[in-house]
């Protein structure tokens, strides 16, 4: 099949509501959304605590977080694989090659992004915001909520950035998911493996969807970043 034919077939898959194609898209989005739901509150809370508290080891934690931003996802996958494999310490949970394993992996990849970005978002807040809340009699929880609201656009940018990183990552999803059709096959693993098996149409169709998702997320990121600087 030539490239033109394959592209035509891909477009047909897209418009005809191909079950396999949209199933793979569904796995991707469902895994990534669940990972974000877990990682968002954890990452933002950790960023807030790092930004507003001084404690021994804080500098080190920030440096480690910055370092983890650059961690290759395949290495995260490798470590998680070792932990979840039958001989690993979490082997009994039998999570390897499940969506849960993929969710855990994506949470681990998203966390440093969320922590680092929300840390800098909160550090970038006007110091008078906290002082004003304090002067008006707010307690610690209300002050925290107020500050997060004041930097909401920067936080949304952080969320978009984390989402973009995990929805398109392949290394970890492949290692701990295993590309099982209908279960753990997501867009990136399907594109890589189906194409290498010669199914160009699936690959191209998924590539188009993933590209659109990435474009959407990046536009949202740019929008929120712009808003946060106003």
């Amino acid at each position, binding site marked *: 099949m030539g490239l033109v034919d394959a592209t035509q077939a891909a477009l047909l898959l897209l418009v005809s509501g191909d079950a396999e194609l949209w199933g793979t898209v569904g796995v991707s989005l469902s895994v990534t959304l669940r990972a974000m739901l877990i990682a968002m509150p954890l990452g933002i809370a950790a960023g807030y605590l790092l930004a507003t508290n001084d404690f021994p080891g804080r500098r080190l934690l920030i440096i480690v977080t910055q370092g983890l931003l650059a961690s290759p996802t395949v290495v995260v996958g490798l470590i998680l694989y070792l932990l979840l494999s039958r001989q690993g310490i979490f082997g009994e949970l039998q999570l390897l090659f499940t969506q849960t394993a993929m969710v855990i992996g994506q949470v681990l990849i998203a966390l440093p992004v969320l922590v680092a970005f929300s840390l800098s978002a909160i550090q970038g807040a006007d110091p*008078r915001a906290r002082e*004003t*809340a*304090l002067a*008006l*009699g707010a*307690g610690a929880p*209300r002050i925290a909520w107020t500050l997060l*609201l004041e930097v909401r656009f920067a936080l949304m940018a952080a969320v978009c950035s984390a989402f973009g990183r995990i929805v398109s990552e392949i290394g970890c999803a492949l290692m701990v998911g295993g590309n099982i059709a209908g279960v753990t096959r997501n867009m990136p693993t399907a594109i890589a493996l189906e194409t290498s098996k010669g199914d160009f149409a699936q690959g191209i169709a998924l590539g188009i969807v993933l590209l659109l998702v990435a474009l959407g997320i990046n536009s949202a990121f740019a929008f929120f970043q712009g808003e946060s600087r106003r």
Partner: protein
Amino acid sequence: MSLLVVRSLAKSLARRVLLAIDDLNLSAGKSYVLTGENGSGKSTLLRLLAGIEAPDGGSGCFEGRPFGWKPYPDWLRRQLTYVHQQPYLFHSSIADNIAYGLRARGVARGERERLVDDALSWARLRHLLDTPPARLSGGEKQRLALARAWVLRPKLLLLDEPTANLDADSRQQTIELLRTFGSSGTTAVIACHDRDVIELPDMQRLDLVGGRIVQ
């Protein structure tokens, strides 16, 4: 009757003494204008009193109830409020800004709405209700910050140069608000160089020289 008594309030930074106040006594129902050269520590004193900055040491009594700064007590925080020289407005609506302190105090919704409504009239902000706070002029921002403080009926109001950076009209409107604020029973301490503020009725003068108060 004294509202606030402060003893041995000290603050230094990098071995430089910013404030060393042996004794400060504010009477209930009076108002004070705090003067002093640039850098004499006016803002620092207000921020210490408001519990926004921590001093190196000091103790106090509010309405006869003793307190210290480590930690600054929550009950005292609810008796007073502080307004920045350039007020910070939350990125929400004008009404939400005014309601902020009421929410923090757990004031029920109906009562809150009534109080916010009063404050909008008091500060003559009603016609601006739909304007995002960030779009307000300097004078309107100052009025909103005053309304946000006034709605709490604080016993002590700490104001940092409320009329600096305002044009003549806004200045007059702000001074008018300060006059009515004072007559509502609130004790105010206003860092200020503005003649018209200094000459408001019942204003006592506190002069800061070299980190000390000359009363």
